[in-house]
Each structure stands twice: as structure tokens, then as C-alpha cells.
């Protein structure tokens, strides 16, 4: 019985894997060099319907239309940048999986560095604060402290 169950599970899992392969089945370009360029661009463009997939990965109908459009632009002689520009002119920077560096996105790009810097500063301050009392304990007593210690030892009581 466990064997049968494993077999069924395996068939099921492999069946699912098969559907993943079936996504990008549209007609490739005749020239493999151009097709390779198109594929690279497909991976950089975000699918508008499913939002966190590239149009290469998405099987939404719009994603397919955009894949074909990219191929058509390349076929027409557009450079990679021109092709991407063409889509961005219609859908905005939003379609770029890697957003461009500009005033509106500067925090997005510098954010991680900023947080890392804050963390380093925080850890540094934290560490230094923990060090201070230890240093204070090891330091020799000042004149005042020695005088007070002496008076306490002599009198057996404070002051």
C-alpha cells in the first residue's frame, strides 16, 4: 500500500511539474540569437495581471501578447533598450522588475544600505556602552574615592 501511495504521489507531482513546462509555448523567433534577446527581455518585464511574475513565467493572456510584442519589436530592428522603452511608455516603470534609479525610487535602492548602516551604528553604540562599566571597574580609584573608602573603613559607617 505505501508503495502505491508513493507512486500516486509521484505521478501527481510529476504531472504538476509538466504543467510548469507548458507555460512558454508560444512560437519562438526563427533567428535563435534574436529569440535569446527576446527571452532576456521577457524575464525583465513584469506581468501586469499576476504582478509578481515576469511575462516569461506568466501564462496570462496579456503576458503572452506582450511576449509576442517584444518579439515583433526585435524583429522590426529595435534595440533591447528601445523594446523595453516601448513597453514602459505604455505601462510605466511599474512593468520593470528592476526599478530604475530615480528620485522616486532612491529610498528603495539606498534603503538596505541605510538600514545596514543604522544597524552597525546601533551595535557599535551598544557594544561601547557595555564596555564602559567594565572599564570603570578596572580603573584605579580616584583620590576622592580613596579618601571616601578610607573614611568608610575607618569609621565602619558612611560619612
Amino acid at each position: 500500500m505505501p508503495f502505491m501511495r508513493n507512486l500516486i504521489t509521484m505521478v501527481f507531482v510529476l504531472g504538476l511539474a509538466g504543467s510548469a513546462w507548458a507555460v512558454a509555448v508560444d512560437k519562438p523567433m526563427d533567428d535563435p540569437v534574436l529569440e535569446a534577446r527576446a527571452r532576456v527581455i521577457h524575464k525583465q518585464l513584469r506581468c501586469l495581471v499576476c504582478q509578481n511574475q515576469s511575462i516569461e513565467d506568466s501564462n496570462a493572456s496579456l503576458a503572452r501578447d506582450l511576449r509576442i510584442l517584444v518579439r515583433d519589436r526585435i524583429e522590426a530592428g529595435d534595440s533591447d533598450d528601445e523594446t523595453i522603452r516601448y513597453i514602459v511608455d505604455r505601462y510605466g516603470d511599474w512593468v520593470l522588475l528592476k526599478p530604475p534609479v530615480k528620485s522616486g525610487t532612491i529610498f528603495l535602492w539606498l534603503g538596505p544600505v541605510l538600514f545596514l548602516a543604522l544597524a552597525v551604528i546601533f551595535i557599535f553604540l551598544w557594544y561601547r556602552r557595555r564596555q564602559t562599566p567594565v572599564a570603570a571597574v578596572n580603573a584605579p580609584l580616584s583620590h576622592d574615592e580613596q579618601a571616601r573608602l578610607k573614611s568608610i573603613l575607618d569609621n565602619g559607617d558612611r560619612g
Partner: protein
Amino acid sequence: MSIEANDPNSEETPRRIWLRMVPLAVALLIGGFLFVGLNLRPKEIPSVLIGKDVPTFDLPALPGRPKGLKSADLKGQVSLVNVFASWCVSCRAEHPLFMKLKAQNIVPVHGLNYKDEGPAAIGWLQRYGDPYDRVGADLNGRVGIDWGVYGVPETFLISAEGRIVCKHIGPVMERDLQEKLLPAITALQKGGTAKC
């Protein structure tokens, strides 16, 4: 010895109190972000075409229906362009509203029939009513892409100069019409500017 002297909290410095506030501050910060996030609509991607001329296009009419749709048709008066399809379920939800707009004769509504089949689109209009002045058949969806369409229905408000003033994503509901579109339409028709 008093209890106070044994209490480690009694030697609390202002700095330590400040440190105790850190978790609260972090919680408030995250809470603030989440609260703002509640009202965001990530599915609605703002159009980059707002304020720009309508794309250049020339679409044929649906079979058996006069008047296709092209860029030049959108100049001369304020109009709405509604992207629809017979396969689009939520288009049915907004359809009665466009029928009402047509009956009231406030603003011409043009249709952009997106990736549909001619007979199916005609059948749909016969069944639910035809509120459109002109309808362009965008069979392969290329003109839709030029308009930045990514979901149907979408509705564009076009100024008399043929410029895209605003874009409504998803079905237009009574409230969208009353609070967003109609005020803008009225302002534009009076020769003013509008934003929405």
C-alpha cells in the same frame, strides 16, 4: 535595607527608559505601515498616459455595426472610452450605468472591444443593450496595449482636445460615476480642467 535599594529598576537611567521604548516604537512603525497598506490598492497600476494625447490608432467597426473608432474621433468633444469584451464578466456589472449615461445624453461613450470575436460582441450588445456611439474592434489586443490596458473593464475620460484625463480600472460603479467621473466631465465640458 529598604526594598527600593534592592530593586534593580531604581538605578534606571533616562537612557534605559529610552531603550525600553524601542519595541513600542518599532510596533507603532510597523502598525503604521500596515494601516496605510490597508487602503492601498496594489492591483491598480497608475497609468502613465494621463495628460497625454490618445494613442494613434484606427480600429474597424464590429461586423454589422456602423462606425469604427480611431484617434481623430476622440477630438472635438469630451468623451468616455470604455474597454469591454463579451467574455468579461464584470463588464456586465457596469453596463447598465453606461446605458443610463446614454439615455441621459450627458457624454458620448465609445467602446474599445478588447480581444473579442465580432459575432460574440454583437450578440452581447444585443442582449445587454448598446450604449456606445462608436465601437472599435481590437481583435489582437495591440491597441489595448497602446492604451496601457491590462484588465477589462477599464474606462478612460478623454478631453475635447483628445487627451487622456483619467483612467478608471475595473467596473464603473454608481459611486465612481457620481464622485469621480461626472464632476470631471462637467468641468471639462465647461472648458475647465479636471483631475481624477
